[in-house]
Structure formats: C-alpha cells, structure tokens
C-alpha cells in the first residue's frame, strides 16, 4: 500500500472500530458507579488475612503473585533482548573504523552539573530503597523503587562520569544481579511449594500490620523484584550509553569496553 492509500483505508477502519468500541463501552457500568468485584472483596480481606496495608501490593505479590512473576520475566526478557540487540559485533570494537567518524567530541561537563549530579545520587538511591522496602505499607514497591534507584545511575552519567561509572560495575555483574533477582522470585515460589505445599504459598510469619517486617513473603518478593528492576534498568541504560559514548569516536579515552559477546 502507498502511504496515502494506507492512511485513507486506515481512517475508515479506525472510524468503524471507534464506533463499535464506543457502542460496546456503553455496556459498561457508569464511570464511578458502585458494584461488586473481586478487587473490592480483597479490600476487605487483605488487611486481616495478610497484615498488609497497601492492597495493590497485596494483589501484585500475593493474591495474584503468579501474574507478577510472569511480568517480571517479561522485563527480564526485554532487558536481555536489549543486551542481545545492542551487543557490540566483531566489526564494531571501539576504535574500529567501521563506526561513525563524525568527529563530534563529548562536550565537557561543567563543574556545577557535576556537583549537582553526584550530590543528588545518594539521596536518590536512599529514596529508591525506601520505596522498595515500604512497598507493602504505602504506595510503591520493587517496580517503582527499582526504577528510582536505576535513575541514580543516570545522575552519575549526567555528571559526566560514564567511564568512572563503568569502573563500578561490569555488564556481567549486572546480568548476574538480574539473574539473582529473577531467581529470587521463582525461589520464593518454590519455597512455598517445599514448605507449604503450594507454589507461592506464604511461609513466613505475617508480623504486625504496619511494620516493615510484616505481610509474610511480600517484602522478600519486593526485594528480589527491586534488585531485578534495578540491575535490569542499569544494564539497559548502560547498553544504550555504551552505544552512544564508547562506540563513538571522539570519546575522551579509549575505554576498556566490552569484548564482543561469544
């Protein structure tokens, strides 16, 4: 199809589709109308059953914990995929002429940016860890907290310290951390199978409602998800940064970059 025919045909189809969807959505209850659902049932049950105050977390990591296991592995696969797709091929070793010679040098970072970037990193990490650790009490958890901690890496990058940053960890270490996070979730599930007889069964004491050490295995799962997301996102960002900085001639040094994957 040419772009023009395609647009015309699409607009027709989309108009029909929108009309049918609107017709069907009219069969939904009115926005905000009260009606029973299993979610509302869990609002009643979660606090007494699980000593957990954030019911969304209870659904994510307990009642429907198996879904989240699957979601975590979607993340896992996507991060691995980015590493696979952005892997340096043999022809692209740093400094190899096959890459682009635009001659564009990385602009020097001003000291102000450097100080602010580095100064913000520790509080960001602490905040992220807090969000992970309190996932079962207040809004937040491994998914959001993991993203926050990973963002701290961005701050170091903004401070212009990618090579320094790159000295802190290696891709292999990140992959291992990600693997531990992913295996941790499966491990909690198998622990339930071994000790409680059912996969993802809670086997820890429920504790005092509102305490950090409550809600059974939920904080444990939160922690492993947090590790997975942090390591995964840092790995993902590193792969992108690696493409931008290391594979671009004119970077400040000939860095000790990754060997091609074998």
């Amino acid at each position, binding site marked *: 199809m040419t772009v023009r025919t395609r647009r015309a045909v699409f607009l027709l189809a989309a108009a029909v589709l929108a009309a049918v969807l609107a017709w069907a959505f009219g069969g939904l209850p009115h*926005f*905000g109308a009260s009606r029973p659902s299993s979610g509302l049932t869990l609002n009643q049950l979660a606090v007494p059953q699980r000593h957990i105050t*954030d019911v*969304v*977390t209870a659904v994510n990591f307990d009642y429907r914990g198996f879904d989240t296991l699957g979601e975590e592995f979607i993340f896992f696969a996507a991060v691995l995929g980015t590493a696979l797709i952005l892997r340096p091929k043999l022809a692209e070793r740093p400094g190899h002429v096959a890459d*682009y010679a*635009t001659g*564009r040098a990385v602009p020097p970072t001003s000291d102000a940016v450097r100080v602010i970037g580095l100064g913000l990193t520790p509080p960001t990490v602490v905040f992220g860890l807090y*969000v992970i650790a309190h996932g079962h009490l207040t*809004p*937040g*958890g491994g*998914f*959001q907290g993991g*993203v*926050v901690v*990973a*963002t701290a890496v*961005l701050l170091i990058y903004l401070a212009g310290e990618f090579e320094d940053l790159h000295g802190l960890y290696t891709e292999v270490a990140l992959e291992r951390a990600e693997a531990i996070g992913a295996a941790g979730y499966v491990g909690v599930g198998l622990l339930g199978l071994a000790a409680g007889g059912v996969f993802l069964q809670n086997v820890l004491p429920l504790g005092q409602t509102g305490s950090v050490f409550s809600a059974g295995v939920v904080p444990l799962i939160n922690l492993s998800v947090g590790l997975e997301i942090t390591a995964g*996102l840092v790995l*993902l*960002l590193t792969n*992108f*940064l690696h*493409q*931008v900085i290391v594979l*671009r001639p004119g970077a400040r040094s000939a860095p000790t970059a990754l060997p091609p994957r074998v």
Partner: protein
Amino acid sequence: MSALEITILLFVGAGGTCVVATRDPLRQAMVASLFGILLGILFFVLQAPDVALSEIVVGAVALPLMILLSLAKIRGGPR
C-alpha cells in the same frame, strides 16, 4: 463528574494527540515526558497512587531518557 476529573481527562486526551502529532523525535521525547506526567496526575485523581508513581518515574523520566539516548546515537551517525 468533578471539574478536576473532566479537565485532566481532556488534558490526557489532548496530550496523547500531541505526542502523535509531534513528528520530530527530539520534540516528541519532551512531549511524551509531559504526557507521562499528565497520565500520572490522572492516575492520582483516579485514586491510584501506586500506578501514578510508576507512571511518573517511568513515563516522565526513564522513557524520555532512552529516547534521547537513541537520538544521540542516531544523530552521531552518518546522515
């Protein structure tokens, strides 16, 4: 429906339109970031703070960052 709900819903609808209508990827990254914030506010209004937190850290920060990184890579390449 309250005026707040109506307003933010209309803003989200318009925001999505702007994201698609912005054809230049660099500008689009900025608009997408704004759209992420709008979505986050909408989710707060809909009493979903967990999702809002998720959307703001991801939609307004992480995702636009990756778009910018991709652009940096591409703009550095041959034209």
